[in-house]
């Protein structure tokens, strides 16, 4: 029991502190509007009335946590109960849109990343010419070209899922390349020599030594790639003009000052990111345990 408290106690304290700060911030930021409204109606607000008002405004500067919670429930659970789980007003529908382009981009980025890494490890020319550019490509604020990719691909006749997935792909391939190059090179000379004494072919060396020993590196980079891919999908939805997806909810909310909608989209995106990264973590433990690589 003491051990559990030792581990979880501080985290619980910090999370509670965040909520307390959030409520305090909501009161502080929304008070001005509440006072203003009261003055126009010639009412004197008592402190408790003031606090109550700051918690229940329609377009607060900072919505209180329970308001965001209610909004999320209203647009997910309540819609499911009414049997309209995938109507356009449902956050589940928007999350689904974002999730599909995230996953497609993630899959493409991972495939491209692994292919590039294999090329870089096995081909010296590619190592020397491509690797510096792969690294340089990440110092470029790539999200800046997201609007252009969307518009250009649209003009060529490709629209919908693919343009967003391309942005996700670009963001997610880099961690995979770097991680896999490291991983595929992780077997040391002794192990490579051993394969040679068994007169293993290049293919055997790859499938039986290099690939298995790169797995821990792969999973670590997949987690980063997944988080990056979600960011790419969200930003990719901005220039399409707020039609569908969590990014569209963010932009729509900011156009119309619907702060509660922005916050609920934000929290949903955070939950989505946590779930996806957690899922990869779970796969990592399972695969590595099966391979006997967990100490």
């Amino acid at each position, binding site marked *: 029991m003491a051990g559990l408290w*030792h581990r979880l106690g501080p*985290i619980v304290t910090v999370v509670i502190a965040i909520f307390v700060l959030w409520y305090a911030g909501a009161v502080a930021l929304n008070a001005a509007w509440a006072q203003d409204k009261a003055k126009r109606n010639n009412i004197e607000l008592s402190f408790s009335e003031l606090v109550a008002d700051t918690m229940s405004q329609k377009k607060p500067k900072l919505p209180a946590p329970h308001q965001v919670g209610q909004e999320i429930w209203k647009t997910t659970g309540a819609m499911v109960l009414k049997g309209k789980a995938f109507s356009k007003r449902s956050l589940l529908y928007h999350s689904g849109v974002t999730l599909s382009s995230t996953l497609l981009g993630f899959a493409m980025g991972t495939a491209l990343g692994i292919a590039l890494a294999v090329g870089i490890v096995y081909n010296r020319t590619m190592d020397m010419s491509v690797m510096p550019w792969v690294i340089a490509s990440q110092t470029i604020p790539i999200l*800046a070209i997201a609007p252009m990719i969307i518009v250009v691909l649209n003009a060529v006749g490709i629209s919908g899922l693919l343009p967003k997935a391309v942005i996700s792909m670009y963001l997610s391939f880099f961690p995979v390349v770097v991680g896999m190059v490291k991983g595929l090179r992780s077997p040391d000379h002794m192990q490579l020599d051993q394969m040679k004494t068994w007169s293993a072919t290049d293919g055997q060396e790859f499938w039986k030594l290099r690939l298995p020993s790169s797995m821990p590196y792969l999973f670590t980079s997949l987690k980063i790639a997944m988080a990056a891919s979600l960011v790419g999908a969200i930003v990719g939805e901005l220039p399409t003009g707020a039609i569908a997806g969590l990014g569209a909810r963010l*932009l729509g*909310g900011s156009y119309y000052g619907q702060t509660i909608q922005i916050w609920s989209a*934000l929290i949903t995106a955070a939950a989505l990111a946590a779930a996806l990264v957690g899922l990869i973590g779970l796969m990592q433990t399972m695969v590595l345990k099966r391979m006997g690589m967990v100490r």
Partner: protein
Amino acid sequence: MIWVIAGLAIWAIGWWTNVMLARRPKTRLTGFAVPAIFGITILLIWECMVRGLEISPVLLPPPSMIAVRFAGSTGILWEDFVQTVIKGALSGYILGCGAAFLIAVLIDRYPFLQRGLLPVGNFVAALPIIGMAPILVMWFGFDWQSKAAVVVVMVFFPMLVNTVQGLQATDHMQRDLMRTYAASYMQTLFKLRLPAAMPFIFNGLKIATTLALIGAIVAEFFGSPIKGMGFRISTSVGQLALDLVWAEIVVAAVVGSAFYGGVALLEKAVTFWHPSQRG
């Protein structure tokens, strides 16, 4: 047609040169020349293909057209650079990294905070923080202050996590030695732990350079005064002036690389003792 053939020929020559260069033992010169040749080859092929296949410049302008546009609109580009990079990204970067550093030192002093804030910080670092942008634009207005705020939020957690990790990088022997010298907390901090943390701190600073530019540019998509790189990109895309968009991207790329390179140079000067810098 002749352009397409020329493009393919350039590709063959470029790749062949690189194969030849890569076969030789790696020197400083070839380490620089090979990626440079690769980059130039790509640019030339781009030019040839756009001309040869007659791709509309509205979709993909050739590099020469981008260069002309770049030279012709240096005034606009400079104005956008000042607005986005100097005012938005740089001030946010300094504020965010500074605050994260101070809080990391504070956290490190109290193990309770460390056990509580670190898992939360790690969690937050993986979240799509860029989504905070519309909220912050609403709070701080359209001008550069809101962009700086987005940058602060974006760079804070990676920097925090890295600094805390770095402050734990010293081992027991080293800390015990400081204790036998009767060193105070401050002395241990400044003479042992901060220097030992430098490689981690610089790792955080380097990650933050890219995040800072991304944050400043994307925040402008949610509203900005009529200047700034993000604003220019999103409006020029709307007007299909893609050559100007590419010119902005060139600026962004150069600034991003220079920013990263500058921090990397500083790292080299500060952590000259670290094994990764000596090789």
